[in-house]
């Protein structure tokens, strides 16, 4: 037990600086500010848990994957710089599994994407075609750009599917029955047309696409679809798959 008050506080300060506690706490606070989580105590607990992970060889890959996924969950993809930082950290973590660096192994990358999709609430059957475009084999080395693209696409896809589910609820008949097939297809048709606008510079493309999905245009399409479209109903799963197809058709296959 150190004697005297002055020595005690000196001793404390020395102990703290030796342990690097200042850096630890600063890092934790910075991460918390970036993530702005609703549960600060839970967040800090997770953060320190991650830091404390033991790197024993058996569970190393799983540990690193968990830590990488934790980082990827911190910021929404719309928070550009925070998301990019987190992707970089996750990539560097996963890179530790390959002895010489040079890229994340294909299977680990694919596994990361699968986890992201399922955590984002996308059913496996819906995300399967997307993963087929993005996946890599075990013997392939995934560079950072491809990793970032894959991760961003899965994050965006989760949002897209959630939005499609909301859209289906809106398009359903008011008595909570399934949506009419004609209506569902007509509405998705406007999205398809807007996505196919490809001429001209960006500004013109955005203007033209937005004209195709304006409320006015949709009102006309819905009225038209009601009278002229195919008969029968469309359940939520089918609608989701049709919407997913529009997105996945535009995903660049990784090679």
């Amino acid at each position, binding site marked *: 037990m150190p004697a005297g008050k002055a020595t005690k506080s000196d001793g404390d300060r020395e102990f703290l600086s030796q342990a690097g506690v200042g850096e630890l706490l600063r890092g934790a606070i910075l991460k918390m500010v970036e993530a702005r989580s609703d549960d600060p105590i839970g967040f800090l607990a997770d953060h320190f848990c991650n830091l404390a992970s033991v790197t024993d060889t058996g569970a190393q890959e799983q540990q690193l994957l968990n830590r990488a996924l934790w980082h990827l969950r911190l910021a929404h*993809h719309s928070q550009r710089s925070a998301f990019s930082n987190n992707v970089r950290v996750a990539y560097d973590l996963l890179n530790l599994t390959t*002895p010489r660096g*040079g*890229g994340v*192994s*294909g299977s680990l990358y694919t596994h990361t994407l699968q986890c992201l999709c399922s955590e984002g609430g996308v059913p496996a059957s819906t995300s399967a075609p997307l993963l087929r475009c993005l996946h*890599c*084999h075990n*013997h*392939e*080395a*995934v*560079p*950072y*750009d*491809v990793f*970032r*693209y894959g991760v*961003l696409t899965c994050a*965006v*896809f989760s*949002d*897209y599917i959630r*939005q*499609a589910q*909301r*859209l289906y609820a*809106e*398009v*359903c*008949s*008011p008595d909570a029955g399934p949506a009419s097939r004609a*209506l569902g297809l007509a*509405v998705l048709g406007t*999205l398809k047309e807007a*996505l196919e606008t490809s*001429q*001209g510079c960006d500004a013109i493309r955005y203007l033209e696409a*937005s*004209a*195709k*999905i*304006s*409320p*006015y*245009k*949709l*009102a*006309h399409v*819905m*009225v038209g679809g*009601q009278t002229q479209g195919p008969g029968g109903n469309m359940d939520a799963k089918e609608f989701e798959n049709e*919407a997913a197809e*529009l*997105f996945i058709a*535009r*995903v*660049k296959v*990784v*090679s």
Partner: protein
Amino acid sequence: MSDGTDDIKPVACTVKPPVYLQIGDAKTDATHSGVCVVDVTLPFGKPVNIEEITFKNYYTAYVTVRLLRRSPGQDAPAKWCTVLRDLRLMDNPHTEGGSQDYYSIHRTQMQAEPDHVVSIRLILRQPSSAWLTFSLEEIRVFPHVEPDPEKEVSDWLSDLMLMDQHPDLEGLPDPQTVSSSIQQMWALTEVMQSNQTTASIGRFDVDGCYDINLLSLT
């Protein structure tokens, strides 16, 4: 009108060597007649609608343009017609004026429509004895291109103008909310597309060959 030719490429054509017409016996007593014929053949099987013929003069005083036209259709006969007679290229055939100028003959100057043209014959005349050799150089034929219909921008813009016709939305979902959802889905797809990378996957290399631990047996 002619600003279009900056973008249009000339048709690939074969310019035959000029044939000087001689009076009298070819071998013994040939005299220069001051008339020369240059044939320009267009690619076989692909008749051209001519927009413009451009060339550089080389001491030719007058040029007459004749076109061999074949109307589209099986076995339609090909017919020669004169579309431009004695276009003056040099103010005075004896002097230098206009002798090496660039000229362009547009379809509007021609007396007949230069459509479905298979071959062009340029008849050059130089009556002056000062210039015994004369011809046209850098002959280029530009095809007539239909102007692009300018509907891309105005089509959907004019749709926006018709805002006062509100359809009857009995029993249908609110177009505002549906539109808002679709717009978000469109925006998400745009984000994905704009972040596409051109990078490609690599292979794990150990001194130029695969690392055995990373090869899978499946």
